[in-house]
């Protein structure tokens, strides 16, 4: 038969466990990243007009190629540790932080990055192009 002291001890123990679980839960909730953090970049008419030269260029964290009517956009964020990659004169991209290399389509040609550069989702809203990355 358990004494009142044992009973109170048990109550305190479970209260402690409950409070600890609550604390962990609150910590988890406060420290979890915002889901699907993304940003949108508007491709202005000036930017689209530059595409008519047929050459790609970097702007707003994106590398734009294609034509003014069908633009394409590649994110310039390295998939290794998020450094900004730079277009190479010979084509493709290079990361200045740890030396990863990507081809013109964003595929990894040498590490440490393992995943290709992200393609921005382009959608037309009215007469505007919006790139979402």
């Amino acid at each position, binding site marked *: 038969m358990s004494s009142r002291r044992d009973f109170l001890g048990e109550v305190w123990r479970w209260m402690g466990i409950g409070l600890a679980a609550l604390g962990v839960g609150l910590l988890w909730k*406060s*420290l979890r*990243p915002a889901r699907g953090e993304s940003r949108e970049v508007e491709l202005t008419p000036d930017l689209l007009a530059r595409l008519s030269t047929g050459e790609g260029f970097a702007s707003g964290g994106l590398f734009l190629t294609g034509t003014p009517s069908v633009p394409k956009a590649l994110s310039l964020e390295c998939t290794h*540790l998020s*450094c*900004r990659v730079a277009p190479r004169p010979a084509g493709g991209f290079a990361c200045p932080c*740890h*030396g990863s290399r990507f081809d013109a389509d964003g595929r990894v040609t040498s590490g440490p990055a393992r995943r290709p550069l992200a393609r921005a989702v382009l959608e037309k809203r009215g007469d505007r192009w919006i790139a979402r990355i």
Partner: protein
Amino acid sequence: MDRADLTPEAEAPARPSGNFGKLAYSFLAVSLLSGAALVPHYDPVSPLLSLETIVGAVPLGSFLRGLHVWSSFAVLGATLIHVVQVAWRRTEGQLGLGAWWRAVALVPLLLLVLLGGFVLRGDAEARAAGDVWRGLMASIPVVGQGLAAFVLGGVHESLGAVALHHAGTVSILVLLFTIEHARLVWPGTRPATLATLVSVGAAGLLSLPLGPPPPGRGVLLGPWALLGLQGMLVDLPVALGWGVPLLLVTLLGALRASTGRMRGGVLAALGTLVLAWIAFSVRILLLAGGR
């Protein structure tokens, strides 16, 4: 009292770990004072402009910046030598457990404050270092993203959070832990004079870079003390980027609780990691030179 009753701690000399601890403290004082003088001229919204203003328009600005940077480097250098002295003389037991762990925490805090100072330059190299820092923190399971946001602010925000922690939170913690560790408010006239003279000499004689890195370098180097970490990130999985420093700090902390063969094992593991750190530092320097 019978002499046989004295514990090893009680028999320890008055300066158990040499003078590098006090020297580190003195360099810290120079670093904090020169840093405080720079704070009013630094705007985290326009870091490069701030730096140009400090160097070009503020009276003695370039000298103050040199004083701050070189004394900060010296804090870390003297602290690392102090750590070796403590391990060599087996004096870690003289600190209480909590005080010991807080003293151990000074090493990563000093590295963080050094990295913060580098990022606050705000040029292309500094921004890239900030990106690496963020990516590395964000890769820590569960708490990583929140920690990165707390320490570095939002992805597209200014360097306000970094500046706040560099000049405020981390510096205050370093000062408090150092005062507690040393049990002194004033490090002493001799080490303070030496630290001031060395810092002033370095600030007067050695120039500091301002602007983009040399062309042709294919990798980021970053602060000298973190070269090994950068080298690891080129060749090893990202998780080791925070796992190895965490292991180093844990081993250093465990030194106080270990005795006999276990202490030897901890020291051997620490030595191996430090050697690997140095090897990866050389590796990335060679890589940067070869691109």
